[in-house]
C-alpha cells in the first residue's frame, strides 16, 4: 500500500513536470500530430498520382451513346476509379476540365467526342465488308474516325499513365471487336449464301439462306488465358494499407518512441542535479520510483495515441483522405499500443542511464529513432524497400509495432496473429530495462 502511495506520488510529479515542459509537450503531441497530418496528405497525393489510391476521373461524354456508356461501365468495373461527369451539377467542357486537372482536382480526364458510336459502327461495317471483299459503302463526312482524348495531371507517374491508357485501349478493343462481330454475324451468312448461290446457281433451294446456322456474338468475351498475380516477396501485402492506415500507426509509433528523449532528459537531469541521489537516500525503493515514471509516460503516450487516432478518424477525412479503419480487434490494438509504449519507455530508460549528458541523449536518441523508423517502414513501406533493407528491418522495434498494427488494421488479424510482434516489443522493454539496471549499478558502484 505504502509502495503504491509512493508510486502514485511519482506518477503525479512526472505528469506535473511534463505538463509544464513546453518543449516536451511540443515533441510529444504537436510533432507527431503534424507528422501524421502532413505525411498522410502527401502520401495520399503520391498514391493518387501512382494510381495506388482511388483515382478521380473526369469523364466528358459528348457521345452519350453506346461507346461512351460502355467505356464508363468498364472503367467503373475496375473498382479503382471514381468517375465524375459534372461539377456542381453542371456539365464540364474541355477547357474547364483542363483547368481542374491542372489544379490537381482530378488525375485525368477522358473526352469521348460526339458521334463516336455512329463512327465506330460505320467503320466496323466498312472493315468487315473490306475483309469479305464486299463492295464499299458510301460514307458521310461525319462518319470519319474519332479520337478519344485523355488528359493527365502532369504529376501523374508514367507507370500509372501507361496502365490507364492500356485499360482504355483494352476497353476500346473490346467495343471494336463486339461491333465487328455484330457486323460479321450479319454479313457472313449473306456473303456465304451469295458465294454458294453463285457456285450452285438455280440448283440451290430458296430456303437455304434461312437455314444458315446463327452465330453466338459474345464468344469473344470467353477467356482462353488468364494472368495470375503472385508475389515473390514475403513483405508483399495482399491488401495494401490506405495512406491513413499506413501513416497513422506509423507516425503514432514514431511519436511514442520520441518519448524516449524527454524521458532520458529527465533521468539525466535527476542524476546531474542530484535529485536522484536525494531519492536514493530516502526510504523508497528505486523500483517504485521507476515504475511511477514508466506509468506516467505510458499515460502520456496513450493520450498521444488517442490524439493521433482522432486525427485519423476525424481530421484527415475532413481533408479528403479515407477514414482510419482499425480492424475488428480493439483489444489487440490496445495490447500492441501498450507493448510499443513499454518498448519506448525501456529505450528512454536505457538512453537516460547510458548517456552522460543531455546533449548526448538529445543527439543519439532522435537519430536512433529516425533510423529505426526508416528501417521499420514508417517512412517508406517495408515491401517497397530493397531486399537487404527488408532483412535489416526485422530488427527495428518500430517495425514490430507497425507490422502488428497493419496486421490488425488491414489484414483482419487478431491478437494471436500479432503475438510474435508483441513478444518482441515486450522483450525489447525487458532487455533495455535490464541493461539500464546493470549500467546504473555499475555506475553507482563507482559513485554517481
Amino acid at each position: 500500500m505504502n509502495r503504491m502511495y509512493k508510486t502514485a506520488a511519482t506518477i503525479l510529479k512526472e505528469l506535473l513536470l511534463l505538463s509544464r515542459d513546453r518543449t516536451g509537450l511540443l515533441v510529444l503531441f504537436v510533432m507527431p500530430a503534424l507528422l501524421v497530418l502532413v505525411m498522410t496528405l502527401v502520401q495520399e497525393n503520391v498514391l493518387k498520382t501512382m494510381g495506388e489510391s482511388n483515382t478521380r476521373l473526369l469523364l466528358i461524354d459528348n457521345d452519350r451513346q453506346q461507346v461512351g456508356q460502355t467505356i464508363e461501365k468498364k472503367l467503373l468495373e475496375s473498382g479503382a476509379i471514381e468517375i465524375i461527369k459534372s461539377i456542381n451539377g453542371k456539365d464540364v467542357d474541355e477547357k474547364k476540365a483542363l483547368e481542374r486537372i491542372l489544379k490537381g482536382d482530378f488525375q485525368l480526364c477522358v473526352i469521348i467526342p460526339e458521334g463516336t458510336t455512329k463512327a465506330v459502327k460505320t467503320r466496323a461495317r466498312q472493315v468487315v465488308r473490306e475483309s469479305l471483299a464486299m463492295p464499299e459503302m458510301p460514307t458521310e463526312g461525319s462518319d470519319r474516325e474519332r479520337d478519344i482524348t485523355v488528359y493527365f495531371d502532369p504529376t501523374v507517374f508514367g507507370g500509372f499513365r501507361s496502365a490507364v491508357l492500356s485499360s482504355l485501349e483494352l476497353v476500346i478493343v473490346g467495343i471494336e471487336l463486339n461491333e465487328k462481330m455484330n457486323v460479321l454475324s450479319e454479313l457472313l451468312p449473306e456473303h456465304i449464301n451469295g458465294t454458294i448461290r453463285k457456285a450452285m446457281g438455280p440448283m440451290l433451294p430458296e430456303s437455304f439462306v434461312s437455314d444458315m446456322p446463327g452465330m453466338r456474338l459474345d464468344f469473344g468475351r470467353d477467356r482462353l488465358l488468364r494472368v495470375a498475380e503472385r508475389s515473390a516477396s514475403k513483405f508483399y501485402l495482399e491488401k495494401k494499407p490506405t495512406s491513413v492506415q499506413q501513416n497513422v500507426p506509423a507516425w503514432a509509433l514514431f511519436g511514442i518512441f520520441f518519448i524516449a528523449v524527454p524521458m532520458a532528459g529527465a533521468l539525466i537531469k535527476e542524476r546531474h542535479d542530484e535529485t536522484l541521489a536525494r531519492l536514493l537516500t530516502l526510504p523508497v525503493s528505486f523500483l517504485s520510483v521507476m515504475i511511477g515514471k514508466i506509468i506516467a509516460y505510458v499515460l502520456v503516450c496513450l493520450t498521444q495515441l488517442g490524439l493521433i487516432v482522432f486525427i485519423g478518424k476525424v481530421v484527415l477525412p475532413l481533408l479528403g483522405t479515407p477514414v482510419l479503419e482499425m480492424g475488428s480487434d480493439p483489444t489487440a490494438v490496445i495490447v500492441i499500443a501498450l507493448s510499443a509504449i513499454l518498448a519506448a519507455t525501456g529505450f528512454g530508460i536505457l538512453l537516460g542511464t547510458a548517456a552522460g549528458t543531455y546533449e548526448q541523449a538529445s543527439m543519439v536518441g532522435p537519430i536512433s529513432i529516425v533510423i529505426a523508423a526508416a528501417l521499420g517502414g514508417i517512412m517508406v513501406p517495408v515491401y517497397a524497400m530493397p531486399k537487404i533493407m527488408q532483412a535489416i528491418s526485422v530488427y527495428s522495434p518500430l517495425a514490430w509495432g507497425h507490422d502488428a498494427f497493419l496486421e490488425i488494421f488491414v489484414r483482419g488479424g487478431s491478437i494471436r496473429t500479432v503475438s510474435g510482434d508483441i513478444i518482441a516489443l515486450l522483450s525489447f522493454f525487458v532487455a533495455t530495462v535490464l541493461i539500464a539496471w546493470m549500467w546504473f549499478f555499475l555506475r553507482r558502484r563507482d559513485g554517481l
Partner: protein
Amino acid sequence: MKPSDSVNKNTAAAGEKALVVQDLVKIYKDASSPALSGLNIAVHTGEIFGLLGPNGAGKTTAISILSTLLRPTRGSVCICGIDALKHPGRVKGLIGLVPQNIALYSGLTARENLRYFGKICGLKGDALDDRVQACLELAGLGNKADQRVSTYSGGMKRRANLAVGIINNPRLLFLDEPTVGIDAQSRNMILEKLSLLKDNGTTLIYTTHYMDEAEQLCERIAIMDEGRIIAEGTPKTLIDRPPGHSSLGGLFLALTGKDLRD
C-alpha cells in the same frame, strides 16, 4: 509518527553516538590511490560536525558512503546504532541529505517539491501538510511557496534545498556545501536555521570550503586530506595547535599545503 521515531530512543539519547565510522576505505576501479584510506569518525547526537578538506580529499566520497549512496571497499558505518552497510533501508528513514547541487525539480514549486519528497518519505494527510508548512517557514519561503523553483534566486533555491533535506525530520543530516554561491543574507539565515536544527536534536555532518562558516557553526571539525583525517577537534583547539594559527584558514593551509588541487 515521524519516520525517525521508529528508532530505539536509547540510541538517540544525549551523549550517544549518532554516527560511528571505523576504518572506512574506498578504492575506485582503476584509481591509482584510495579515495578513503582508513577514515574514522565518531559524532555525538545533536552535534554539528564539520568535514573540511581541499578538492579530492575524499569528503564527497565519505558523504556518499555515509548517506548509503555508495558502498565502501571495507570498513563499517553505524548510524543511530544501526549498521548502515547491512541495513541501508532502515537507515534511510533516519537520515537527510542536502546535496551540493540544487536537488529539486525546478519545474515544480517549492511546496510541490516538498509534498513529493514528503510523500516519498511516507508522510500523508495533515502530517504532510503540517511538515511541508514547517519546512517552508524554516526556510523563509512561506510567501513564495507556490512559485516554481526555476524562478527563485540562488539564495532561495539553497533554502528550498535545505527545506527538502529536512522534510522527513532526520536524526542525522548530511550537508554538502549548502551555502555555495549565495548572498550573505541567505547564508546567514541558513546558518541560523542549522543552529536551530541542532538545538532540536538533529545531528549535522557539514562540509564546506568556507572556513569562517565552519568556525562559527561547527562544534568539532575534521580536516581531511588524501582520504584520511589529518586533524580533528573543536575550532579553538585546532587554531591553538602549536605553533598557533591566526584562524582556521591558516591552519588549513598549513596542513594541506598551498599547491592547487585541481
